[in-house]
């Protein structure tokens, strides 16, 4: 399995707050990597570093063999066209309706005609199980619908990798299940790899091909789900046992 991203000793601080203290991680093509960790452990920061939304203080981020740790903003554009980011709250543009939100990346980066864009928008919505909502504004959508529309926007440009930032946080169990199934479907049907940042155990169980556990600014564990269950790391055990008690 080839690497898409490779992180080597990546460090990131915000003032006196040392968030990442030396992350080593590889992201492989074709797999779903789940990054588990508590709130404020730097999971989202790590995702943002991957596509240059913020830049690392030190260490290296390698994308397909090229060091992309410190590039100019525009130099990240080719990577961002191939790697989509699903934000925690969806980050839909609230001045635009659903159609305009989904059409946005197509209008920006392609010469597609309006009918072709409409067809592609409808197709993307169908893939996430939504229909006839193109005219709605984000404020008309429920939390689950908003996540699904955001996912439709993330896949509309046919990316190779999607970075999911807590895709199921704040959702009810049924909607969580729907989103988890969609993440798997993106992998199986569209061959999209994923990095899923979460602290939600159902998402871990349903979506993870590999699990990385982020604690105190470093990757404290990385391996398969089976290996994670046998891990002696106390916090990681607490995640699995906490779920067993429930």
């Amino acid at each position, binding site marked *: 399995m080839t690497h898409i991203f490779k992180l080597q000793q990546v460090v990131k601080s915000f003032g006196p707050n040392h968030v990442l203290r030396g992350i080593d991680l590889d992201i492989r093509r074709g797999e779903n990597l789940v990054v588990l960790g508590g709130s404020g452990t730097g999971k989202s920061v790590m995702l943002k570093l991957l596509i240059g939304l913020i830049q690392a203080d030190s260490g290296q981020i390698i994308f397909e063999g090229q060091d992309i740790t410190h590039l100019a903003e525009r130099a*990240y554009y080719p990577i*961002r066209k191939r790697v989509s980011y699903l934000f*925690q709250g969806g*980050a839909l543009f609230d001045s635009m309706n659903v159609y305009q939100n989904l059409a*946005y990346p197509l209008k920006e980066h392609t010469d597609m005609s309006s009918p072709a864009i409409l067809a592609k928008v409808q197709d993307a919505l169908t893939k996430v199980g939504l229909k006839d909502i193109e005219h709605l504004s984000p404020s008309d959508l429920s939390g689950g619908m908003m996540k699904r529309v955001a996912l439709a926007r993330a896949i509309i440009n046919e990316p190779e990798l999607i970075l999911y930032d807590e895709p199921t946080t704040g959702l009810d169990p049924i909607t969580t299940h729907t989103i988890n199934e969609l993440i798997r479907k993106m992998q199986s049907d569209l061959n999209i790899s994923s990095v899923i940042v979460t602290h939600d155990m159902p998402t871990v169980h349903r979506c993870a091909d590999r699990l990385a556990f982020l604690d105190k600014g470093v990757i404290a564990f990385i391996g398969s789900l089976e290996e994670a269950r046998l891990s002696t790391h106390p916090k990681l055990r607490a995640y699995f046992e906490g779920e067993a008690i429930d």
Partner: protein
Amino acid sequence: MQQATLTQMGQVVILTGEWLSNLFLRKPELREWIKQFNHIGVQSLSITNITALFTGMVLALQAAYALSAFNADVFIGDLVSLSIVRELGPVLTALLVGGRVGAGITAELGTMKATQQLDAMRAMATNPVYKLVVPRLVACVICLPILTILANFIGIIGGLFIASFELQIDGHFFMGRVLDALSVNDVFSGLGKTFFFGYFIGIIACNNGMRVESGAEGVGIATTSTVVSASIVILISDFFLTKLFYMLT
């Protein structure tokens, strides 16, 4: 000078550079420009014109009070027109637009920042400066002079109204004094300043909005900061711009 102020000045300089490069090197998004012209220009008309009307009326009354002591009521038209065209029209319009539009821009961009919509734009390989800052700043720079021209006209009409109906001064005489008193330099000096005021309002508002750090509280702080900063910058720069245009004309 505080470090925060210097930091903000540096940010403004950088944002100005990005604005200029996006303005001149990329195709304008006319639809978004028109939307902002409407929002920033057309929708500010009522507040700026009402203020100008009553400022002109008050100015005429105050002038009558002061000048009648010297039996110089005939110069009311001179005083009203020069005050409005050289100073009050540009400055009051800028302060009002700074309050209304500046606060609106910061709140809008700040909310977009807080809800990660700006990051979403960047993550989709698009430039928020090009999409958001360029249209707003262009609209500020172009609309403020136009709003000021209208405010000047309406302010003088306010003065004419009071002169005619309250002070029993002949309307033709009043307008004759206005036209005699005003020179091209007066109009140029007053309007020239408004391009700078428009730039200050737009750049401060956009910069504060795009740098909101936290949620609702951060948006509130940034919005207040925009109104205060824009007002102070307008008033201070007015002095230096007046001197500059005085030297130029």
